């Protein structure tokens, strides 16, 4: 690829540094994005895909055994009636939220840097929601009556209880999955047309062509398309905030000390975005180096994402502190006991793992060196993912294991099948993601082209503008 030259540094239209490096033009963007899809399958891909597929197989085994034998194969029991199942559910739903934040909220805020990462982040959302939906589905015990969750007219004349947050959750998460998939597909249509038009084999041409719906880049189509895209962003924004708020109400509406707090909805949403951005960084670090996309997904993108992690991590840290304050301020001995027990009881190890990963470690992102160092970003993103899984575990299990009745107290230990379900869900997630990067353009080509300076129909001739911008900047010093 072309070396980074001086003119790259200024976007003459926006008057600030360019988002895409390497002096790309429209065609070279297409080439760079299409290469991983059209080239030979790299060995590294198989090295990611096969272990993921094996873990997906493990999920199959674990879920089959669960169905065969019953919910007792997991370690949960009275009083810890929810454990890793719901921990995994909340963890995966939360992961998905960064994808929607990038695709919808940053779109509404006109953050053009999102175009390099939104496609992959939205794919991540969909796969994370798939993983999430497994757990409420399988944790019901009698899976053959899982349809009770949906308002389906039946011979018993029976309807679900719409006044319960658990049912709100069914609607919120399934509609979230649907809307995310629609949003993702609408964004893909122009890029599928690109893949169709570049196809060398009849099979590729037919398959991409089928899904491209005969897209011909017509401006009369783009007009409706842009309205649809903007509206989907506008709908997905309150939707994503509502989804994790509703997930938090599964807990907050109950009367368990440690769950029954009004801070939960904003605290869960901040935590979701926090963990989701960590997962985006994990995936993007791997993809950009594996597929040579470092001029499109630049260090600046990571810098921005690290800042969001710092902000949301600090919000989460505030929520942890505020929970303790309210536990004391409420004067309720049960509340106070639950929180003292959380930090100093049998699960203190989990609590302090959470604090170390979520509150202490992201503080390195105050430093630009850390925000632009790929190894630090990668390690931190893993820490945050671990920390956020533990956050859900701490909330769910520590609040339950000390019941109101001391004779019921117990200590939850996972079984091999709990572990298999968690690992298996990672298998599903990474299998889907591997297939995605191999068969679909993982960068929104049409959108990235719009942020190049030459995409503006009123762009000045490129040889004058950078100099002007540079002079203006020098004058400012």
């Amino acid at each position: 690829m072309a070396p980074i030259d001086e003119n790259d540094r200024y976007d003459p239209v926006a008057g600030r540094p360019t988002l895409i490096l390497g002096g790309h033009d429209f065609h070279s963007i297409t080439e760079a994005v299409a290469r991983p899809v059209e080239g030979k399958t790299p060995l590294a891909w198989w090295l990611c895909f096969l272990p993921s597929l094996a873990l997906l197989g493990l999920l199959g085994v674990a879920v089959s055994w669960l169905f065969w034998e019953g919910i007792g194969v997991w370690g949960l029991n009275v009083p810890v009636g929810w454990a890793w199942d719901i921990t995994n559910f909340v963890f995966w739903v939360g992961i998905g939220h960064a994808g929607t934040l990038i695709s919808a909220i940053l779109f509404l805020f006109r953050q053009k840097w999102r175009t390099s990462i939104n496609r992959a982040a939205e794919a991540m959302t969909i796969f994370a929601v798939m993983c999430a939906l497994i757990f409420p589905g399988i944790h019901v015990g009698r899976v053959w009556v899982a349809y009770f969750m949906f308002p389906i007219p039946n011979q018993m004349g029976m309807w679900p209880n719409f006044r319960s947050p658990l049912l709100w959750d069914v609607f919120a998460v399934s509609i979230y999955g649907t809307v995310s998939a629609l949003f993702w597909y609408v964004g893909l249509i122009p890029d599928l047309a690109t893949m169709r038009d570049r196809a060398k084999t009849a099979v590729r041409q037919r398959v991409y062509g089928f899904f491209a719906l005969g897209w011909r880049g017509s401006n009369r189509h783009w007009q409706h398309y842009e309205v649809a895209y903007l509206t989907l962003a506008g709908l997905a924004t309150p939707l994503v905030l509502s989804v994790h708020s509703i997930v938090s109400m599964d807990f907050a509406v109950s009367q368990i000390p440690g769950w029954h707090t009004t801070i939960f909805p904003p605290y869960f949403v901040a935590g979701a975005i926090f963990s989701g951005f960590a997962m985006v960084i994990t995936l993007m670090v791997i993809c950009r180096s594996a597929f040579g996309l470092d001029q499109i997904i630049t260090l600046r993108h990571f810098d921005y994402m690290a800042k969001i992690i710092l902000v949301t991590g600090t919000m989460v840290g505030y929520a942890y502190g505020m929970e303790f304050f309210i536990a004391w301020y409420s004067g309720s001995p049960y509340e106070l006991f639950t929180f003292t027990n959380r930090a100093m009881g049998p699960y203190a190890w989990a609590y302090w793992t959470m604090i170390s990963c979520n509150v202490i470690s992201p503080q390195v992102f105050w430093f630009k060196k850390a925000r632009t160092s790929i190894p630090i970003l990668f390690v931190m993103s893993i820490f945050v993912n671990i920390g956020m899984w533990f956050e859900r575990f701490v909330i769910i299990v520590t609040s339950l294991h000390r019941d109101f009745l001391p004779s019921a107290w117990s200590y939850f230990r996972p079984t091999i099948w709990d572990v298999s379900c968690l690992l298996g869900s990672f298998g599903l997630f990474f299998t889907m993601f591997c297939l995605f990067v191999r068969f679909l353009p993982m960068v929104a080509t049409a959108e990235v082209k719009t942020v190049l300076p030459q995409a503006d129909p009123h762009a000045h001739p490129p040889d004058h503008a950078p100099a002007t911008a540079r002079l203006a900047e020098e004058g400012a010093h």
Partner: protein
Amino acid sequence: MTPALILAEFSTPAALYRGCERVRDAGYTRWDAHSPFPVHGLDGAMGMKRSMLPWIILVLGLGGAATGFLLQAWVHSMAYPLTISGKPHFAWPAYVPITFELGVLGGALAAVFGMLGLNQLPRHHHPIFDGSRFSRFSDDAFFISIEAADAKFDREATAKLLSAAGATHVEIVPETP
């Protein structure tokens, strides 16, 4: 050969923009521009009206919300009135989340399928795909197409207008037999 349309290629978004202004001012009505990405301001340069899609989305979004609310109210007040955790049957505040979610679902489905409907997609075949260079529209080329069905269409005059407007390549695309 019966011409279906005339296809003109432009090299940059700026050239396409100026070309569209010329075609618009010449009074053509059945024509279109094709680009790999939406070109900012091209709607104005083509003299297009605003999209009516937002109205479709509004109606179906509100429809979704109304359906959600009525379903819940009907189930709990009429079809299956059970008292659970002391909540009233018509507990309207508890219906808000699902009402909202179904409103979003209605709006999102309306946005996607309304967009496809207004664009008359999917349409896998179109004469324009026979244009010799048209496959590059999805990569880095920009086109204006004027349909032969346009009242002002004239092989020579239209081609001349497009060349004068800055097209780098002009061709007649025949009707598919």
